């Protein structure tokens, strides 16, 4: 197939293939607060997590402009340039290579992208990178000790609590979050705890068993 010369022209100079290549576009001139207020959905989401001024700004930031943020992920600080509309999920998977956080719907329905934010399970697809600053983010990878599985992961292996394994990272993080809040959950607590995580293979029955086993494993280790 011949290349189409015209389309090669579309390689725009300001295309942000790599955030690090574009230090000049840090977007310092636009405050994060101003951006959030200008973006309907972002503002609605942020309203619960970030304190916003009551009056909305009319300032609109062009797509492609980047802002510098700093994220605390699994105990490490990552400094990076992002478009303000990038979801935390997109940043984790496509920019940081943390593919243990999966993508299923990007609309807060399936839970495949569940991460812990300050210890609580949240959907990474429903959070913007810019609003995740200052929070302690834990992904599936953060539950490991080197190559060693964490107790919830071990319990999932032993109870065969997955089939295709794609929703599994989200399920594991949801159970981790549940057990941090409630170390001895009853069956109904577990059901509710993972009810925001769809498993289309239908392995819930074994997920319940794994959560129960994980609680015991954690207790045996003094709540590791």
């Amino acid at each position, binding site marked *: *197939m011949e*290349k*189409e010369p015209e*389309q090669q022209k*579309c*390689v*725009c100079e300001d*295309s*942000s293939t790599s955030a690090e290549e574009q230090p000049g576009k840090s977007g310092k001139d636009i405050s994060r607060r101003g951006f959030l207020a200008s973006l309907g959905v972002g503002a609605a989401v942020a309203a619960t997590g970030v304190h916003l001024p009551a009056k909305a700004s009319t300032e609109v930031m062009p*797509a*492609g402009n980047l802002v510098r943020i700093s994220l605390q992920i699994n105990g490490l600080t990552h400094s990076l340039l992002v*478009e303000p*509309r*990038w979801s935390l999920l*997109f940043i984790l*998977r*496509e920019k940081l*290579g943390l*593919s243990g*956080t*999966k*993508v*299923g*719907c*990007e*609309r807060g*329905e*399936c839970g*495949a992208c569940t991460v812990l934010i300050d210890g609580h399970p949240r959907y990474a697809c429903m959070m913007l990178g810019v609003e995740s600053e200052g929070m302690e983010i834990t992904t*599936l*990878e953060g539950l*490991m000790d080197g190559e060693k599985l964490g107790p919830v992961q071990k319990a*999932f*292996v032993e109870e*065969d609590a*997955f*089939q*295709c*394994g*794609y*929703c*599994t*990272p989200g399920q*594991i993080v949801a159970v981790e979050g549940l057990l941090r809040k409630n170390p001895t959950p009853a*069956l109904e607590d577990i*059901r*509710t705890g*993972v*009810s925001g995580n*769809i*498993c*289309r*293979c*239908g*392995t*819930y*029955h*074994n*997920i*319940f068993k794994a959560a129960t086993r994980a609680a015991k494993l954690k207790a045996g280790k003094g709540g590791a």
Partner: protein
Amino acid sequence: MNQQNDNLYFIEGFLVPETPAHGEDPQPWKETQVVGTALPRIDAYERVSGRALYPSDVVLPNMLHGALLRCPHPNARAKRVDISKARKMTGVFAVIPGSASGTNIDWSYRGKGKTKLFDSHCRYEGDAVAAVAADTPYHAWDAVRAIDVEYEVLPFVSDQRKALDPQAPKVHEEGNVVGKPEVYERGDVSKGFAEADVVLEQEYTTMTLLHTPVELHGCVAKWDGDHLTLWESTQGVFAIQGEMARALKLPLSKVRVINPYMGGGFGSKLQPGKHTACAAILARMTGRPVKIFLTREETYLCTGNRPSNIMTLKAGIKKDGTLTALQFTATGESGAYPAGGVQLLDFQIRELYACPNVKCQSTDVYVNAGPARPFRAPGHPQASWALEQMLDALAEAAKLDPVELRLKNIPTYSQSNAGNPPYTSTGLKECLEEGARVFRWKEKRADQKAKQEGRIRTGFGMASALWFLGGGRPPSTVVVRLFSDGSANLNMGASDLGTGTRTIMAMIVGEELGLKPNKIQIENADTGTTQFTPPSGGSKTVPSDGPATRAAAVHVKQQLLEMAAQDLKVKSEELAIVSGKVQAKNDPSKSIKIPDISGLKTRGVIVGVGYKKPNPSDRAINPFCAQFCEVKVDMSTGEIEVTRFVSANDSGRVMNRLTYDNQVYGGITMGIGFGVTEGRVLDASQTGKLCNKNWHDYKVPTALDVPAEITSIPVDPHDMEANSIGAKGLGEPVTIPTAAAIANAVYNATGIRVTSTPISPPQLCKLLAEGKRKG
């Protein structure tokens, strides 16, 4: 190097099964030591740690992201596609409308229905109009939204009843009936109905279901010169390779498809999508890898579905329960292209129960909606919804127990396959009896006779099933390699959909060679490095690739024993493998450690090749199943809670008890979706558009919808004829009768027969209110 004194990989004290001579089939296993145990999956670590790399996880240097513009109308002509604004946008590298060079590609739906990659006539909402590649998915979608399309919106039809009206808009020139109706007939149904003491007739309908595997459909495409590599989330890498080679006019040797892990398919990932071709074209055009993963909404529109069916079933029995006649007339929605709207729909009507007089007619219908695709046991759960509710009604009319009625009509041979071959095994009787015993069916139903009062009513129901495929089938080729230290590599083309294929095949190798399954290295699902096999689907992966794997391991053993025979100066047929050594059967002093065998040292590797042989032509091989359930119905809200399930399955040998039970739980969960929560809604009267294209509005079962108590009962008839491993497949049969069992339980609780899926609160409320009015 070789750590000969440490047991790194073999099972201590394990005498491996007899090794047949070259050209002879291995004997069926009698006792097994590895196969059948509850071994945790050998790839569990990768899946729970996030190390498993699924196609959607692939990020390559310089990679671009693609997105497709899809037609928003159910029937329209894209008259003008203006990309001038889109191609100038930030981060955009390429935009391809149908007029771009290299996009004039013929497209079909698994070989049926001729269209184009970008057909200007879009016959369903979601058909592809153009595609974009940009540096981020955000920029790609910005550009998609900036493409300006002038559509000529055409009249549509999105309902199969309306489509059959001669005045309806035509989806295709030839009309709205796909091909000719499928007809099956044996005996004389009018004679059968005349002989019956009870005859009932009822219409049943099922809604369209969406597969919605959690990993989205998509791929990454990368070119190295004229060599295309695709990481596609698929059930069959060789199917993708074949179809993409054909579409792009490349030899198979220039298309490599890789997919060792995939995030669910259920039949929707047996074929490439238009995204696959778009990614390949955009990657070639830009000289960069291109990743296209669909949005969840797109997967609802264009990655297949379980078609909706309208079925009328008329059935007759004698007083003693003997079935005398079954007459089945059905239509089904293929979608906008021929895609199997009535595929395998009548199989259970023909086969599940002994009945001398059967007549089936199934008509496949075009509508302006996304084409169907096979969905876990195509056709079977829909027909089960009709047949198993009908049997329940017949049993009540004849004052028989539903289990007794089924036991009265158990077939011993295939009634509709040519020559009426006997089944290798039919565990239907055992499934019914064992399931009923464990469920305490008789006691529960006897208690039920007392009239229930109050708001919450409890009901008990059951249903049985068979699946049309059991013994697997050729082709399948598997390679097993023995390394110089005696550890092994298993090389197979099959995808592991989450059914445990890798684990089960490793257990087969372990059984034959005395190796620990979790020490076996596995390569699978890569057209560049693994062996040909059709897509994983139809519950045929274990019965097809399993025997091929066993044959490959046997081939390794034969060569190893011949090599050892030379060292030990003992005939190879007198040798056996035990604890990492080869030794004479009657003189254990004559033995040699596997790494010390001269022939193995010289060659450095032993390569065993195994093939799936054809099934016996004079036998029918099918898995059977019976399920029993308890439901609680809220008489004021119409909500139902499924509180208990028992599933008894004859799927032949249990290969791994953990993955076996897991399939049972998963099949029942999916059946609950079909029966209680799921249904695609099209705005048939106004816009023809899909109304519930997300998991919020289209509700799949969650952790709150499954029973706390599910019991899996394997009924193993020790089938020595099905194939060399004796397994018949489980994944599909276990989801077939679930919805009908629930419907029968709801009837038992309420006296209301729900003949349309799903048994949703609004529907049940309405039926309960109507029931009250009738008194």
